[in-house]
């Protein structure tokens, strides 16, 4: 096995600039993608896909910093702008034009809020990017075996869906997997939040009768029915929330939470 594999050296913008090169896309990893143990696997899966299709990409590495999204949603406009202005200086210094990110919160902030502060880029969420790779035949997703008959339900991220009207791209990626895509009761524009947005991720929920992620997980579990199933997400926060929910319901043996990039990487035989 090992001899058929090669070790990936993830290129950074600094290295590229030193060689006088410019990548086609900047992969914006985001804080969750960099630090959250579970979500790092998504980052790695996405890099495997980038390597596999041979796109010329780079990351900022240690030069990346929080986009400021959680600060902004929590009301700390000052800290948000500090982050944004500093990030924009870095991005503009590298002459970045096109950014791909797996995090809808980074996506929304970079795409919609950075232009007011002088950061103008073409920003693409990884669901749209993966959909294009599939449409262009660059990724074949020969996942017929791995996913056949498996029930998958997609949980819409508010910051991808309602905030930016992206509903179809992640579903098309899942449809290409040849799995059995089932929809929850509250989907697309009517989707129910995972409970993490608006900086809720970083605080205890306000007192109530239930946590939002439990409500959403119950809905997902009811949709998947008994047996094996996958809750597909396209957002690091949703992933944490759904994972916690599944654990809370003691269903982690039966129901797995995967990011769409992991599913594609698996189907392509890039990772287990």
């Amino acid at each position, binding site marked *: 096995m090992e001899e058929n594999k090669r070790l990936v050296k993830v290129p950074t913008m600094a290295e590229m600039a030193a060689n006088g090169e410019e990548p086609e896309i900047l992969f914006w990893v985001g804080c969750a993608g960099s630090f959250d143990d579970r979500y790092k696997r998504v980052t790695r899966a996405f890099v495997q896909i980038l390597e596999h299709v041979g796109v010329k990409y780079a990351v900022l590495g240690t030069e990346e910093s929080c986009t400021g999204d959680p600060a902004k949603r*929590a009301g700390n406009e000052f800290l948000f702008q500090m982050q944004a202005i500093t990030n924009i200086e870095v991005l503009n210094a590298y002459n970045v034009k096109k950014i791909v990110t797996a995090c809808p919160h980074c996506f929304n902030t970079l795409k919609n809020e950075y232009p007011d502060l002088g950061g103008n880029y073409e920003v693409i969420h990884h669901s749209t990017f993966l959909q294009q790779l599939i449409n262009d035949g660059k990724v074949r997703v020969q996942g017929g075996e791995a996913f056949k008959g498996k029930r998958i339900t997609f949980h819409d991220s508010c910051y991808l869906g309602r905030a930016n009207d992206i509903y179809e791209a992640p579903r098309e990626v899942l449809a290409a997997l040849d799995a059995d895509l089932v929809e929850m009761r509250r989907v697309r524009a009517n989707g129910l939040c995972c409970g993490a947005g608006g900086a809720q991720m970083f605080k205890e929920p306000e007192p109530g009768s239930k946590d939002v992620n439990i409500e959403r997980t119950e809905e997902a579990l009811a949709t998947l029915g008994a047996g094996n199933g996958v809750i597909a997400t396209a957002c690091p926060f949703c992933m944490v929330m759904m994972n916690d929910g599944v654990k809370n319901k003691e269903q982690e043996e039966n129901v797995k939470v995967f990011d769409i990039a992991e599913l594609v990487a698996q189907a392509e035989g890039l990772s287990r």
Partner: protein
Amino acid sequence: MIQLENIIFLIVAGLGIGLFVWQIQKIRKNILLGRDLDLTDNPSERINKTLLVAFGQQKMFKRMLPALLHLVVYIGFIVINVEVIEILIDGVFGTHRVLGFLGPVYSALMFINEILAALVIVACAMFLWRRNVTKVPRLAKGVEMRAWPKMDANTILVIEIVLMLALFTFNIAGLKLVELQGGEAAGVYPISQSLINLFGDNPQTLHLIERVGWWLHIIGILAFMNYLPSSKHFHIIMAFPNVYYSKLLPRGKFTTNPAITHEIKAMLDPSYQPPAPETDAEGNPVIQRFGAKDVEDLTWKQLMDAYTCTECGRCTSVCPANITGKLLSPRKIVMDTRDRMEEKGESPVIYDPARYGKDEGTERVKVTEENTLLRGYITPEELWACTTCNACTESCPVNIDQVSTIMDLRRYLVLEESAAPASLNAMFTNIENNGAPWAFPAADRFNWAEDIYVPSKN
């Protein structure tokens, strides 16, 4: 022939319309308490939205039954208004069914009118049923649904039914009179025709009934019009401008405060020259407030939102925080804004909705006796429960932006009072120190890139 009746009519109509104009002026003043905001961009997109969402009722159709019932009342309202024009002309000039010369067009109009009027009665009865018998939760529940909002909704529905009954009354009596005189009535009246013998055949009585029905209808309409500014029913007017001025940007884009941008740029680059501070009419610099504590810190659009709310509770019924038992109800945020605005500014003449807090039922939630929108009406606990998911803005049939108000109030808490929950303050510190919301050293940010393998291509 102009008679005393016409003069009385002219006075009554003049008073009714004058009072309405006066009330509108008050509301205009209240809305202008808000901060300035330029929303004159993209007129064609705005008109498009208005046609779809306001005229076309697009967002109502997320729920079929109420959408259809509402459509009946809405179309009924528009068509029956054509008859109101006739009533006004008849009333002023002492004419009778002045538009009758339109012949077949008039017949068709009256025909549709009667059918719609009957359907409006049915729809209003069903609405009353949903509110008072089956008690659809979003209409019946919520701390903000005190005595007044509930009574208001029922009042409107009953008035609408009474207005329609008055219309039938004078149609039936009028038809019978014409029949007794052996003449031919202008127009076709399918329902009144079938009820033609309802009021007997004494011409004097019939004439009296016809006049009473006619006066009741027009006085009812004038009174109703003047009740609107006190009521959630004001949405029949406000929905149109409010949708026209609604947010065209992606829902996820929140406003940027330029004053903060200048401050930061000056911090980062000492040679940066921020523009001269804004001045008010007297030339004094305007004191910048970050976020909103009270209604005048909100924009006029956010205040217009408050006048447009139909209190339908669609926003609250889809709010994840509300669904899971948290204190937040986006409808309450909007209704509180209106109440506070009218407490601070002017209140309508018929009924002061701000009084709803003093109505019977549970006390208004307050943290302090401070008389500002924040704390006096809306508690920080409500604000901190919001996930900014935009389910509320998506569901609102009249394009109200509840999230923008919630965000502005949150900004005040954080920027002016540093009153964020402790865990959020810790998150802020982490971002400041490590460039990430978690306490991980920035130097570890790239550690994920170790030991990644891909199948080699050959």
